[in-house]
């Protein structure tokens, strides 16, 4: 029985440790900087150590200045983001999960065609369609309403595809056959058999939908006529335009860079929270197709 493993297997190579540690720094230092930047004054940002803590007083001052900009417009933007992403999340789940289920586990005419169309549309870049989308939404007179953003957000072929993969691999067909034999209608089968087992894919589709819609920039930038309706990501762009270092014509009521950092932190806070808890079902959902019986 071999007792000696080959020298370089099973023992951690110091080079790999260094590489992993360097990348850990690469990924985390900018986020750390962002958090610290919100606690500094503009002067400290430029002249102080980049990774030093500022002061609580400066943080309070930055908060006051940021909320003072446009009279709390940052909260309005955050509210808009929540409304758009939230509404879209509900609609997406109600649309994509049943559709994925049907594509995977029911028989109907045109199922394969729809599946192929979904795959194709899923790959196509959706921001190339924003300009035609604008014209279409305008043609039905919806420009300026919340639905002009929420409805396009709710169209999520990738979500349908994920649900399809999940249902076709994670749900034993025998279970469904048994339920149908027992006299359950299709809707009943879905409600009583499939849905209770669908928690992972609901979480996964919800995750991708929410994150994707929260961080979407191009679509709301083109479709929304008034800055009051902006989601917070587009609002960040507006704030950027008011920072003198980035736009010399910004005058006395300018936004300072630490306030911009604070705004960015507010903008990502909900997504960050979601991210911290999402790894597990990300892997489970994405790899569902790999664990076939």
């Amino acid at each position, binding site marked *: 029985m071999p007792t000696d493993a080959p020298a370089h297997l099973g023992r951690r190579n110091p080079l790999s440790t260094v590489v992993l540690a360097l990348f850990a720094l690469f990924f985390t230092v900018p986020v750390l900087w962002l958090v610290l930047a919100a606690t500094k004054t503009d002067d400290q940002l430029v002249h102080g150590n980049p990774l030093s803590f500022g002061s609580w007083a400066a943080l309070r001052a930055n908060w006051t200045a940021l909320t003072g900009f446009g009279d709390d417009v940052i909260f309005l933007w955050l509210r808009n983001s929540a409304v758009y992403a939230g509404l879209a999340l509900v609609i997406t789940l109600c649309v994509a999960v049943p559709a994925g289920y049907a594509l995977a586990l029911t028989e109907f005419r045109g199922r394969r065609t729809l599946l192929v169309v979904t795959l194709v549309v899923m790959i196509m870049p959706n921001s190339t369609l924003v300009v035609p989308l604008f014209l279409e939404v305008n043609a039905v007179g919806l420009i300026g309403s919340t639905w002009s953003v929420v409805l396009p957000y709710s169209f999520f072929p990738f979500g349908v595809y994920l649900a399809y993969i999940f249902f076709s691999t994670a749900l034993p067909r025998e279970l469904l056959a048994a339920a149908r034999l027992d006299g359950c209608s299709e809707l009943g089968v879905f409600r009583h058999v499939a849905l209770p087992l669908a928690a992972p894919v609901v979480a996964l589709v919800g995750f991708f939908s929410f994150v994707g819609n929260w961080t979407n920039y191009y679509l709301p930038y083109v479709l929304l006529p008034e800055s009051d309706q902006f989601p917070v990501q587009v609002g960040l762009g507006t704030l950027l335009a008011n920072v003198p270092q980035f736009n010399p*014509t910004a005058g006395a009521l300018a936004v300072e860079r630490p306030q911009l950092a604070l705004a960015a932190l507010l903008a990502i806070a909900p997504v960050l929270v979601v991210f911290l808890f999402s790894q597990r079902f990300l892997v489970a959902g994405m790899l569902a197709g790999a664990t076939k019986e």
Partner: protein
Amino acid sequence: MSDTYRRRATPFTSAVTALVLAVVTACGGGDTGSSTDGTLTVWVDATRMAAAKLYQKTHPSVPMKIVSYDGDANGSNYLQTKVSLFNRTREGWPDVVFSSQNNETTWAVDAGFTAPLNKGLLPRSLLDGWAEGANDPCTVDGTLYCLRNDLSQTVLWYDATLLKDWGYQVPATWEDYEALGKRVAAEHPGYLVGSAGDTFTPEIYLWAGRCGANQITGPKAVTVDATGPNCARMAALLDTLIRNRTLATSSVFSSDFGKNLAGRILMMPGPAWFGGALFQGTFKVPAGRIAVAPMPQWADDVTAGDEPAVGNVGGGTWLLSAHTANRDAAADFLTWVTTSDDYQGEEAPGYPAYGPAAKTWLANQASSGYYAGDIAPLRAAADQVWSGWGYGQFSQEAIWAATVTPGLNAGKSIVSLLPAWQEAIVNHARADGYEVKE
């Protein structure tokens, strides 16, 4: 098989689509725009927000909706984008808009957005009060389509204390300026006599030097001569001073300028708003040091008896919507915000384009005690902006930033970049539909 599916599906899906859209149209469809209930919708940038709010305070009976936007700065084209969208939806235009750009009429007239101001809406006596040439960018075929907010005539800003301590004279000619730069490089290295790192650098130096890179000759016609003698000699001057490091190659608003160079300014040719926004606001120079002198001129222009020429960096314009339902209220606001002493004279950060308000403004600046010496050169320069540099639809600042600034950052000379600059201006002008003569 799939055909049958589609045939069955199409009437079904289109019915559902129609139903859904009908429902949401009925309860959605946000009504944005020029309202018939008398609310005045005003778009301003962050700096002009104070003006709109002051008007609201002094006219509490006027219902107002004040919207903040980026002022079309940095070539964002936000206003043109939104007006183009509003034109398609046929609603949503603001009543009065401030733009930090002076070239809005190059598209806004064709888009039907701006209302003519000198055809009875505003009295001729009022319009005559603007500084000479100030409203030229707003005038198309004799009709006035916008009003200048402030002038940004260039002058020579300098640190009077340093100048006196070092025993220098204020340069009256560009030749003197270059010589002074060489002296400073030798005697006080690290100090600056100007900055060439901004996107508006050509508007300070080349415009004042009568460079013919931007001669707008008609609504869609331009003559571009960026390699001619006037441009070349100013470029050579800039190159000399960049090489001996008395001209910065970073923007005056950049972090590295603020960190390393802000405390080392001997002089800085620049627009009128440098005084407040740059020296007082950004660099926080203590009172009593900054003074104003006239912009240098070329020696042979002086001997030939030519009118002095200065440049201009920005200014901003106010536009009144042709679609407004509140014409009187809008005209009233427009008049107040461009001419009133309350705002322009007392509060405005820039030199007002309206003459009487400018007098008030100058008096206030002088009495504030911030500046050393007499700021009368500002007044004189207001009438000396060279008329051979116009405002086209294409942004000269963006072209300079994308073409010359990267070369400067890489160490190339401006003279060597002039042909590329010429080509870029011609290309952009043609892409915007201009007829270009070189």
